[in-house]
């Protein structure tokens, strides 16, 4: 792997475009390098995807565009594509000798901005700058806007020189600028004039900022959420709609990917879950969890998980759930024939899965077996630390702090095996134990449950949970009523389950007014925590062994669902 010198762009666009080429074929690598050099681009080559990612991470603003082959030995080209899009937000061009429509479509779906067929012609490479240019126009980050405009103007002034000409005319540019003006709150001359306010400065999603974001999303209601609304609520003057939108998008992808990974990992039966969930991910909006519109109670409140699910996350999760969560509890839900439930639970699922992330569920006893179950859901959110700590480092860095600062106790993982949804046959085939980690709001009174409080050490998600939980407490109390399962809230992984439970609970409880935003109510949390701990004595194995009435659970939920009008499957 050769490394070129990646300096900040100094040359007139598009000359000096900093390209990173990734291809395992040394012959092609050399050819492409030569071709790109002939286009006056600055080329860096790499034959391994991992190395490429490292390089990209090391020099965050060292490249303008990435060209990658689809078939590579160490990592799938599409996966690399996802990573780059998510972490660095650079345009990526895919290449392959295989031009099958399905492959091309896959590339586009994963976010490739172009797909070239090998053998690649020089003229095709000549125009790759358009992707960089296009992104600049559309991105409109505050700090960069000035740079963008400058570059756009530069390009326009040179448009006559370009062979292909430009379609961009003054009107368009003006429109773009206007749009930016309207949306950029910080768009004032002083800041713009300073070119050294490098275009590199991207919005840093600090814990506070992220928290505001989450709060806003929560307040709006998941289904109604949109970048503009979030922005308005957040009331952060210098933030733009684009910042919010791109943050959402990235997070969504991130979560969906985690979801997939989680599923994958669950099947591998990982043992210890170390959930360090970035605060961001933990911010679940309960509302988002549940289809807000659908079940009045449900949504919110979905149960104790008051997790404020980041808008993105939920959405992602939702999608992921469609394939993922559902798959996690496939049996279950199917068995219960609650297809509706599944659907409605999607939202929940997503949130729940997210929740699972931060929890380190404790229970020494339950470690092994119960973990399996938990693992699956947890897996999703398990930070992919060993393997890929970096990819989401950005998020984590931003969020983890918040989490840590929050008091932990809240998270309760109910390791009841009964996973109602899981039913006797755990939803996840691989799990022997139909343990479901349920995160129930910590409710001091309703102790009958067996929620296990997540290890306080995982402050991460817990804090979020707590907040949510607290609100749910009311609901939880009601849970007591539902004897058999009590609070078998399926959490994390089984969002569907969780949601189910949650909904059921809320229903009975009539948690309509749970204030989801009330996160850090440490008092409540403390209270809950102690009580729970006392009551819980989580014991996965034990619980699992004596499987409690899964069916009862189901019916319970069903009944509740029906009662509340929530559409639970089955």
């Amino acid at each position, binding site marked *: 792997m050769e490394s070129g010198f990646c300096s900040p762009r100094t040359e007139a666009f598009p000359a000096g475009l900093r390209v990173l080429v990734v291809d395992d*074929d*040394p*012959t*092609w690598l*050399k050819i492409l390098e*030569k*071709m790109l050099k002939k286009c006056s681009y600055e080329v860096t080559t790499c034959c391994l995807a991992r190395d490429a990612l490292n390089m990209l991470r090391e020099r965050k603003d060292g490249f303008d565009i990435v060209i990658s082959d689809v078939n590579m030995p160490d990592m799938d080209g599409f996966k690399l594509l996802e990573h780059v899009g998510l972490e660095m937000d650079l345009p990526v061009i895919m290449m*392959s000798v295989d031009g099958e429509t399905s492959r091309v479509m896959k590339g586009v779906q994963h976010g490739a901005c172009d797909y070239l067929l090998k*053998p690649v012609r020089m003229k095709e490479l000549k125009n790759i700058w358009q992707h960089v240019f296009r992104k600049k126009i559309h991105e409109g980050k505050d700090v960069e806007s000035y740079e963008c405009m400058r570059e756009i103007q530069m390009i326009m002034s040179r448009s006559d020189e370009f062979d292909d000409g430009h379609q961009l005319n003054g009107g368009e540019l003006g429109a773009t600028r206007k749009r930016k003006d309207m949306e950029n709150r910080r768009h004032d001359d002083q800041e713009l004039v300073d070119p050294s306010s490098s275009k590199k400065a991207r919005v840093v999603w600090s814990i506070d900022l992220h928290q505001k974001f989450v709060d806003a999303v929560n307040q709006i209601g998941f289904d109604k959420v949109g970048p503009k609304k979030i922005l308005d609520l957040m009331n952060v003057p210098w933030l733009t709609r684009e910042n919010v939108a791109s943050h959402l998008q990235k997070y969504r992808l991130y979560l969906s990917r985690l979801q997939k990974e989680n599923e994958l990992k669950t099947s591998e039966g990982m043992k210890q879950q170390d959930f360090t969930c970035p605060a961001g991910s933990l911010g679940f909006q309960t509302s988002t969890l549940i289809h807000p519109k659908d079940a009045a109670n449900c949504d919110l409140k979905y149960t104790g998980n008051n997790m404020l699910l980041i808008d993105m996350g939920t959405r992602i999760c939702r999608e992921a759930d469609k394939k993922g969560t559902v798959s996690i509890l496939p049996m279950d839900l199917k068995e219960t024939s609650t297809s509706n439930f599944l659907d409605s639970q999607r939202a929940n699922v997503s949130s729940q899965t997210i929740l699972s992330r931060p929890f380190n569920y404790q229970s020494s006893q339950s470690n092994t077996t119960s973990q399996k179950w938990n693992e699956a859901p947890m897996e999703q959110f398990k930070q992919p630390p060993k393997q890929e700590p970096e990819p989401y480092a950005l998020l984590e860095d931003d969020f983890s702090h918040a989490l840590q600062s929050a008091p932990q106790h809240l998270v309760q993982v109910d390791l009841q095996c009964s996973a109602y949804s899981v039913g006797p046959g755990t939803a996840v085939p691989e799990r022997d134990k139909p343990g479901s980690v349920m995160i129930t709001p910590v409710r001091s009174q309703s102790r009958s449950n067996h929620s296990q409080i997540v290890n306080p050490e995982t402050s991460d998600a817990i804090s979020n949970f707590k907040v949510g939980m607290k609100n749910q407490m009311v609901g939880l109390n009601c849970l007591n009523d539902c004897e058999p399962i009590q609070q078998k809230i399926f959490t994390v992984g089984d969002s569907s389950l969780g949601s189910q439970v949650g909904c059921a609970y809320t229903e009975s409880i009539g948690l309509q007014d749970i204030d989801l935003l009330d996160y850090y109510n440490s008092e409540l949390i403390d209270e809950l925590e102690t009580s729970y701990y006392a009551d819980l004595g989580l014991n996965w194995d034990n619980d699992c062994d004596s499987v409690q009435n899964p069916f009862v659970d189901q019916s319970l939920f069903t009944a509740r669902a029906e009662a509340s009008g929530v559409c639970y499957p089955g």
Partner: protein
Amino acid sequence: MGKTVRGQWHREILSSPSLSLSPMGGWQRNKGWSHSVTFTRMERNPLQRQVAYMRRSLFDQGYLDEQFVQLEDLQDDANPNFVEEIVTLFYTDSARLIHNIEQALESRPLDFIRLDDYMHQFKGSSSSIGAKKVKNECTQFREHCSARSAEGCVRTFQQVKQEHTILRRKLETYFQLARQAGLAN
């Protein structure tokens, strides 16, 4: 072929069905199977003529395709032997790929998916230098993989290797000739 006194250019009637020399000395595609009248750069010595002839025949006989021209276009003062370097790189790397396939062909039962994968790589690599015939054989091989025909795979692989070797020899000769012609210039 007549040579003009002063000019570098003279007419030559080429009857290549697919390719002909463009006025600027490169190759251009003919639209049909007609004779084309084009100009060719004057070859000062017979060696150069020979090189040009050999080059043309490589294209005519389908050993090389357009990609080779692309490589030639990339050759410049910074990389005066670019084409030869690329071809050398290809042959070095493809030896590895061939070895992989050979090994895979020895295992029983045959892992067609793996074979297809290897061949996909090999085909991609061959496309880099414009090795047309080799590529075609690769395609055949992959078809046999899809059909799960062990006999077909083994047979076509022999053809792949054969074409691979033939091309190498021809290109080696070609480059040698070109070097001599260049020196003689």
